[in-house]
């Protein structure tokens, strides 16, 4: 019994140790990779707003309402077929 508890405590210490060492190493590596990429292979971050959303403002509200109805109905019909 006490022996098993001792094993358990040892397991706890080793286990938490490994978890921390492993994730600490991961932090170091993530940082190294990030700095390498930012220095040598910089990427242009893509902006989240799509150009499509901008052009929407020019269409009048009635049209948009109609479309949302149509898409809604289409989506429902779509679901209804149970094929996709």
């Amino acid at each position, binding site marked *: *019994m006490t022996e*098993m*508890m001792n*094993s*358990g*405590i040892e*397991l*706890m210490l*080793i*286990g*938490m140790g*490994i*978890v*921390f*060492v*492993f*994730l*600490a*190493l*991961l*932090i170091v*590596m*993530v*940082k190294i*990779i*990030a700095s390498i*990429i930012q220095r040598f*292979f910089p*990427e242009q*971050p893509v902006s989240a707003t799509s150009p499509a959303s901008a052009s929407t403002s020019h269409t009048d509200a009635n049209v948009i309402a109609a479309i949302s109805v149509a898409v809604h109905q289409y989506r429902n019909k779509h679901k209804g077929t149970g094929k996709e």
Partner: protein
Amino acid sequence: MDNLIALWESTGLYNFTGPQVIMMLVGFLLLYLAIKKGFEPLLLLPIGFGAVLSNIPIAGIAEEGGILHYLYFGIKSGIFPLLIFMGVGAMTDFGPMLANPKTLFLGAAAQFGIFATLLGALALNLIPGMEFSLQDAAAIAIIGGADGPTAIYVASKLAPDLLGPIAVAAYSYMALVPLIQPPIMRALTTEDERKIEMQQLRVVSQTEKIIFPLMLLTLSALLLPSAAPLVGMFCLGNLMNSCGVVERLSKTAQNELINIVTIFLGLAVGSKLSADAFLKAETLGILALGAIAFCIGTACGVIMAKIMNKFSDTPINPLIGAAGVSAVPMAARVANKVGLESNPHNFLLMHAMGPNVAGVIGSAVAAGVLLSLV
């Protein structure tokens, strides 16, 4: 007449045993929790149904030649949990974690729930009627990882007899995260701490997202090969998604494949909810230990976040530490919600996703330790 008697003797009414009836009721309870209470229905519904099916007398649905017996092979071989882990990997976005890598420490700290529970399980041996081997204790402890496929994988290797209660406990407590965590989080933090706003996360490049799963797998191969099946399948799914060139495969892994395997896995787990395996004092112990594991994990995550906040240049809201237990994405949502209570303009969701996915990695690493040393 003989036929009528034979028929009567082949009815469930004639053959039902008390424990079977109780286990069917347990199955119905799980269905109730899944459907009416919304407890992880994707898993608990098939698990509950599997429990009902496998406790029907005579039918032998979970015995040699029955469909649940065949499906169980998918768990015994590790295939089902690993495929689910692959799908989860494909659904995971490591972006927030890569933007703020020190949140990995929060995912590490929360794994203390696992190892504390291991000791707790061993301590329960003092109570007469409870008898847990070191393997059993390790399998129970993994509930604290708050990760379903990892728990099922480890339990199927170390203590297949306890698989049913362990899986049920793991998924139930994951569903209860919104109830379990907030009181602990509030008790361990001050109002001011909960109000802390964090800096906006930088944008992470696709290259970093592609390299990360490969790096994680390499590290696991070098240091902890016993975690490599879990980590590897998770990274495969994640790579399929982040690389952008195999969208077909990534979508299939996230949808049809994971759905099919979820049905099969749930039924197969349910087939282990037999009276023999479940109606024992040990099951109560497992349920109690599972709750404790979640509490300790949450507490350690929060405390770690408080410590890091002390020493960090940029502010860290301790609430996001609670997300370190994993239970993706529930725990991150809880952190966000508790944060909003104190500061209605403070959206912690993305900040909490970092420790949240770190918790998945952390528990896979802990699983590797248990599989290699126990």
